[in-house]
């Protein structure tokens, strides 16, 4: 679906943000790109919808080089939800806000109405249909932004730091929502530094540091590799840290999930299972 081949990117200011990144994202995958601020995560995903074009190397979406397509053309397939919803909200009503992109992409009136209806329902925003997006709370504005992207049903959904400022309940709802979208066949790419959230989602994890990918694999593998995590300035999940400290008692070293941890400890401490 998305092929990145030896991508280099240098900002006009001279900063080299990406230094030889190669990555393949298959249709329907769920991927988390992690790394500290400045590692190049956002720079990388901005190549997926053409906002940035490679300095050298190539990025292909569905086999077509992104340099041959405009941002609007690429966005039709690759929808990006930005970190700050306030960078996009400008319409008088939530309804208009959701239809904005649909109008830009040339959908007809009837389809627009249906899609808006669908998006409002999907994100529980029906009661705000005629409200101004600016008077809604922070969490509600994030939902409007998400709804406005889902409305045009892109095949790929990119979420840039979706958990910032969210409380636990909101994160849980988001997690289930993402898993549902992925189950329906959408390719989901999440840029984040929230390691606990990623551990809960259990996607494929790509670690970036200093403009390069330093790890790429299942969450269980990557998030338990302390050495690489340290290179990327990521703190391992608490469960993984715990199991690492009790490794000498024979506990497995690839645990990131809370319930798996509970069941293992339960068996050992209550059930008397010898390790």
């Amino acid at each position, binding site marked *: 679906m998305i092929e990145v081949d030896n991508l280099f990117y240098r900002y006009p200011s001279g900063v080299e943000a990406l230094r030889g990144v190669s990555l393949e994202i298959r249709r329907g995958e769920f991927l988390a790109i992690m790394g500290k601020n400045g590692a190049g995560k956002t720079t990388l995903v901005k190549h997926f919808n053409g906002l940035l074009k490679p300095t050298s190397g190539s990025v292909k979406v569905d086999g077509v080089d992104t340099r041959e397509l405009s941002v609007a053309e690429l966005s039709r397939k690759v929808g990006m939800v930005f970190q700050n919803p306030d960078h996009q909200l400008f319409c008088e009503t939530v309804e208009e806000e959701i239809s904005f992109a649909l109008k830009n992409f040339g959908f007809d009136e009837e389809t627009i109405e249906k899609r808006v209806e669908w998006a409002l329902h999907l994100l529980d925003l029906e009661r705000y249909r005629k409200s101004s997006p600016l008077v809604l709370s922070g969490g509600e504005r994030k939902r409007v932004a998400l709804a406005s992207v889902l409305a045009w049903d892109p095949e790929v959904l990119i979420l840039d730091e979706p958990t910032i400022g969210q409380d636990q309940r909101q994160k849980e709802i988001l997690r289930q929502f993402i898993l549902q979208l992925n189950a329906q066949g959408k390719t989901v790419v999440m840029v984040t530094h929230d390691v606990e959230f990623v551990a809960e989602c259990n996607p494929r994890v790509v670690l970036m540091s200093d403009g390069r990918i330093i790890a790429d694999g299942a969450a269980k593998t990557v998030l338990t590799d302390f050495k690489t995590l340290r290179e990327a300035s990521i*703190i391992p999940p608490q469960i993984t840290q715990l199991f690492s400290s009790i490794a000498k008692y024979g506990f497995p070293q690839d645990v990131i999930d809370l319930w798996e941890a509970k069941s293992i400890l339960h068996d050992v401490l209550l059930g008397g299972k010898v390790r």
Partner: protein
Amino acid sequence: MPIIEARNLTYTYPGSSSPSLRDVSFKVERGEFVLLTGPSGCGKTTLCRCLNGLIPHFYGGTLSGELIVSGLKITEHPIHELALHVGLVFQNPENQIFALSVEKDVAFGLENIGMDREEMRRRVEWALEVTGIKDLRDRAPHELSGGQQQRVAIAGVLAMRPEILVLDEPTSFLDPLGAVRILEMIKKLNEEGLTIILIEHRLDLVSRYVDHVMIMNEGSIVLDGRPRELFQSSYPELLGVGLPKVTKLFNMLRNDGLNFKDVPLTPEEASRLVEEALHDRGR
């Protein structure tokens, strides 16, 4: 006498139909490190704005009940007077830095109160030292990273030498490593006697530092006590507060019948409890 005391504090924003704070009462002792948390919209941000008088003086609205900070009733003193006792640090460091150089910005508050230059220089030096940004003094704020900017914001507030430091989600815009560095710095300040009120969602990062937790929901304080006491129940989770994973893990194990000597807040504490449990079983 507690350094902060609230009695039946109720507040409604101007133009709002329902109160954002309902009958809030609590006490904070000098030198405590307090965590104020709760689901989005619970009123914690509103409460922290009361602590330095932004509510009611800047925001207006209707405030009833009492809030006494450092011996001063907030309704009876202007913000600029309360600012000498309570420093408030906000979420976005970018919007707390005004000047074009770090040093000048840290001096901003001191210039406002008309301090003489010699004394200002001493205070600014101290603030830069304590926040570890002495080498950034001539830099322009726009060139700094989020973590560095947040330190500058904190330095600017510390220069006023308040007894209380209130921080409203100061790590929001920082990555976990940046967050830990800031929190470690705040903990050190607390150990030197500064009373800290921290508003945070990310309990996994902050629980290890705090000794007093207040959880709010829908404008009221619903839980108030020591972290280990409060976090051993599932009530915080039901309210929408995310406990540290290890704490949650041990709560679940406790529900299954296992007994532990303590409630862990960090992986280190948790591993010690596991070791003790294994040794006990071994006997």
